[in-house]
């Protein structure tokens, strides 16, 4: 809302320059977004509190400033009117109209101009001067916050009815060039032929007063806030009037506004005709709220007396009942302009807090403050993050939803399990159509973004969640799964002169998963699963020969793998083979396995290499297990090399490094011959075991031709 400083000064004495007024206004909840200076004076653009309809006027703003400063207020001039019995001209046919008063004014002398401050008030607040009959009502709306409407009485056909629309009714509203259908049930003001206004929202062109209008009906009403808001939303029209009514207008001002209008119309040659017709009169609630003075002082750490608080409340128009109040308890009557937001004691605390200023109160901490325990899962999460950061990974944030464009990165088939989504119903942007059921699409988006920015080495991770339709879920729509994902693409290490590039591959990612497993004190098991079910549908987008399920206690908790070449093609990413991991955050909460400290020994190990040619149907992990089971002297088995060439018959030749303890359980030192003999025995056991178990032929590399 815009207000002119000069106009405001007609409502309250302001003994400060604008530079000092603005911070004061902000300190009482009247946020000043802009200060503009022009030949029309100083205009302040305010952001008003959403619950304070009374702020939508100069008088309301003046009252709020008065509540802090007690600067003198000035009321508007008015000429009294009488209220007649009955309302022959108006009929109320809806319960949504709380109060409705109509006064008639007729030209009875020479037309004259309105005082300059009327136009100044309207224009300072962004309104337009139309004609004197209309300007009076608009002025009162801006000045005192009571929306009013004027009709050309000679254009009104028969009785005025306040009613709700029936299906298909139309109205030609102000500032529009063709009639529009009004929603059924919209509260309107109508005569016997036309709809004259949508109540509290916008007038219609029928019966609109002009400069030549001789007889005017002026309406002053209190409409139901919800009804006005529904109409305003349905029509897409937000007027000063609707904003005021939506926040609850002042039922005590319905007649006052007509008396101010009476004064202004008299200045321009119109005279009130007869009495005001009060078609609906609202017996609005007049609450009395109890305020505990000691309670207030404890709440704010203050020491105010009942008299001091009473005086401050009076500045807002809140009267303390002296008969029923004591030094410890104040009984406070709520005025009509505050019935919408002052209902209980805390509302009065708020008024007084604003009056005194929140910055005047002391600072304390809640009594009995003690630190909370850092949960184990957060420590584990932190360890994982530290490790990833040390490896060069950046944490990113992605949206909880995406659109077809992002999903297209995956090149999904029509029957892909990733085609099933929870959908947003009213997204302004089609990129927010689906709640995400996987993170790979966005992860590839990040790779593509960075590759396009000539930053091909991408390492990113996120803690997030995915959404999976499930009518059996708690909310009847979907399961929310807390997940962690990471993607790596390009080189493992930063580019350094004199160093060879080492492209990221699936074993790099697998290694990180294994390290995460260790950090969580969990023993993940990675199983190569060529055919994925629906347990982890994102697995279908990983290379069928280079992906594994991550299992914990036989439960699938994640996937790791290289992105499927087809997916990569659909994503448009070239010259890179990104690898991806998705892991359930459940692992942060799983019980860790106890671990035992094994002190380092002074007995140095003896190392022997064993190179075996292993056919494709034998898992290297299984071979390692057999090696360990075969000899109690083997302390550790590591893979030190892998190659595949014509010389190996295009099979994988794997070099295992066997670490023997140099001393037996009996305390005897092993000789080199004994270790060599043990290695030969292990090799033979492996060959025999897999021949028997899988009919697989494992060969000693040095035994190959």
């Amino acid at each position, binding site marked *: 809302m815009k207000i002119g400083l000069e106009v405001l000064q007609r409502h309250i004495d302001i003994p400060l320059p604008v530079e000092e007024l603005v911070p004061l206004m902000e300190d*009482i*909840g009247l946020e000043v977004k802009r200060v503009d200076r022009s030949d029309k004076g100083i205009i302040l653009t305010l952001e008003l509190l*959403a*619950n*304070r309809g009374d702020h939508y006027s100069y008088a309301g703003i003046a009252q709020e400033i008065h509540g802090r400063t007690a600067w003198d207020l000035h009321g508007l001039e008015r000429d009294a009117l009488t209220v007649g019995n009955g309302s022959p001209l108006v009929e109320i046919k809806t319960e949504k109209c709380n109060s409705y008063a109509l006064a008639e004014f007729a030209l009875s002398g020479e037309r004259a101009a309105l005082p300059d401050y009327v136009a100044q008030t309207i224009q300072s607040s962004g309104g337009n001067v139309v004609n004197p009959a209309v300007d009076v009502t608009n002025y009162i709306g801006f000045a005192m916050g009571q929306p009013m409407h004027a009709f050309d009485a000679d254009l009104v056909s028969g009785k005025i009815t306040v009613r709700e629309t029936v299906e298909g009714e139309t109205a030609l509203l102000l500032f529009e060039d063709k009639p529009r259908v009004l929603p059924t049930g919209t509260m309107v003001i109508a005569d016997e032929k036309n709809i004259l206004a949508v109540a509290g929202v916008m007038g219609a062109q029928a019966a609109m007063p002009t400069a030549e209008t001789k007889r005017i009906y002026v309406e002053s009403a209190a409409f139901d806030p*919800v009804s006005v808001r*529904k109409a305003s939303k349905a029509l897409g029209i937000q007027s000063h009037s609707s904003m005021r009514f939506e926040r609850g207008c002042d039922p005590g001002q319905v007649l006052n506004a007509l008396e101010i209008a009476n004064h202004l119309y008299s200045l321009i040659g119109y005279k009130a005709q007869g009495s005001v017709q009060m078609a609906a009169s609202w017996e609005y609630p007049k609450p009395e709220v109890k305020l505990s003075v000691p309670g207030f002082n*404890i*709440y704010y*750490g203050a020491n105010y007396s009942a008299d001091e608080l009473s005086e401050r409340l009076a500045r807002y128009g809140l009267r303390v009942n002296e008969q029923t109040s004591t030094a410890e308890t104040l009984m406070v009557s709520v005025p009509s302009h505050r019935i919408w937001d002052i209902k209980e004691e*805390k509302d009065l*605390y*708020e008024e007084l807090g*604003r009056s005194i200023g*929140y*910055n005047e*109160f*002391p*600072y*304390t*901490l*809640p009594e009995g403050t003690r*630190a*909370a325990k850092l*949960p184990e899962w957060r420590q584990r999460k932190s360890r994982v993050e530290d490790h990833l*950061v*040390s490896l*060069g*990974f*950046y*944490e*990113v944030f*992605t*949206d*909880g*939803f995406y659109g077809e464009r992002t999903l297209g990165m995956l090149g999904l088939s029509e029957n892909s399990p990733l085609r099933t989504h*929870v959908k947003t119903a*009213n*997204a*302004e942007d089609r990129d*927010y159509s689906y*709640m995400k059921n996987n993170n790979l699409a966005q992860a590839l*988006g*990040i790779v593509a*973004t*960075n590759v396009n*920015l000539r*930053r091909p080495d991408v390492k990113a991770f996120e803690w997030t969640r995915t959404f999976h339709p499930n009518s059996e879920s708690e*909310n*009847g*729509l*979907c399961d*929310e799964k*807390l997940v962690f994902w990471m993607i790596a693409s390009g080189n493992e*290490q*930063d580019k*350094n*002169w*004199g*160093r060879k590039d080492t492209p990221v591959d699936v074993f790099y990612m697998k290694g990180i998963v294994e390290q995460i497993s260790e950090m969580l004190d969990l023993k993940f098991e990675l199983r190569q699963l060529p055919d994925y079910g629906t347990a982890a549908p994102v697995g279908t987008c990983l290379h069928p020969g280079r992906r594994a399920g991550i299992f914990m206690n036989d439960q699938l908790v994640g996937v790791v793998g290289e992105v499927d070449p087809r997916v990569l093609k659909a994503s448009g990413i070239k010259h890179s083979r990104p690898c991806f991991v998705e892991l359930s955050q459940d692992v942060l909460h799983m019980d860790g396995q106890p671990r035992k400290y094994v002190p380092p020994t002074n007995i140095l190990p003896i190392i022997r290499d064993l190179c075996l040619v292993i056919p494709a149907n034998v898992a290297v992990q299984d071979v390692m297990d057999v090696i360990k089971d075969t000899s109690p002297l083997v302390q550790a088995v590591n893979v030190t090399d892998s190659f595949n060439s014509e010389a190996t018959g295009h099979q994988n030749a794997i070099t295992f490094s066997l670490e023997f303890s140099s001393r037996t359980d009996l305390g005897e030192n092993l000789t080199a011959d004994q270790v060599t003999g043990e290695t030969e025995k292990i090799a033979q056991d492996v060959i025999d075991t897999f021949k028997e178990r899988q009919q697989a032929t494992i060969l000693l590399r040095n035994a190959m031709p």
Partner: protein
Amino acid sequence: MYKADLMIENKGVCMAELSEKVQGIKAEFQDKIDQVSDLKTLEELRVAYVGKKGQVKVLMGTLRDIKDPDVKRAAAVEFNKLREYVEGNLDENRRRIENVEYDRQIEAETVDMTMPGRTHETGARHPLSDIETECMEILRMLGFEYVDGPEIETPAHNFDVLNIPEYHPARDMQDTFWLENDLLLRSHTTTVQARVLESRHDLPIKIVSPGKVYRNEAVDATHLACFHQFEGLCVDKGIRFTDLKGTIEHVIRSIFGSNWQVRFKPKFYPYTEPSVGMDISEKVTSGEPKWITIGGAGMVHPQVFRNLGHDPEQVSGFAFGMGISRMVSMRHGLDHIKTLYEGDLRVHQAVAHKRFEM
């Protein structure tokens, strides 16, 4: 001439022969060592002269054949001098050759230290996570625990119990994404507070609830449809407005320093009363401080307590939302926080590994 030589000369020819032999060895050694330029040859020379079977050692072995004690003593002195001479020369030349070899090595190994160092660049947590974690740690020391909640919510938890009835203008403050089944995407993490108040009745309740929220707004340079919020709630018997002020001030000073101050301005949030906006600024000794809005807070509205099964006559509390995006902007000098949601890792890199000002 040495005194010992004179004495031996007086004793007869035997000593003279020995002296001649010593001089011969000495001269020959000197010739050879003058030509040595590497440690290997020097070592060969050492073995040849003072090694177990070296000339000096052999000569010293002849002492036992000398019967005359005076001659024997004089010869021993002569031989020792020879040994000392040889060993001294060897040591001196070893040092000389080592120095030469060291100089050669250094010259050969000298590099251009202006070449860039080889690095392994670390990554970084998201700057928002960093601030979130800091705030959580500070608040944890005050007894606040982390609580999470669903992002897909009911209108009841997002609006109704929080004192935002349908058709209230306050709903305009948060444009909502709606889903099927009359569900929605939470527009604020206050939903977590609602769920906690609904399910917990043991006091005190002290929680923080950071997380993603969704607003169905047109995205521009300063608005996002999905962004992070960080909220906290403290409920107990006798919680005061001053506790809210003290807690917020504690967090701000812990993060930014004790020379920072907080001011509170009236605001409206349907679920708190009184509601306040929080601005912070560095204290200045002259001129006006530059205030930056950092979040909103307030005392839990009595109606919210009633809606969630608590008696506002018995309990009170405060809730707050910290503008962590604003804090990140302040800490890192980022103009548009939106860039941190776009996956451009150059931005993350630039934040994490800031350059020195030139």
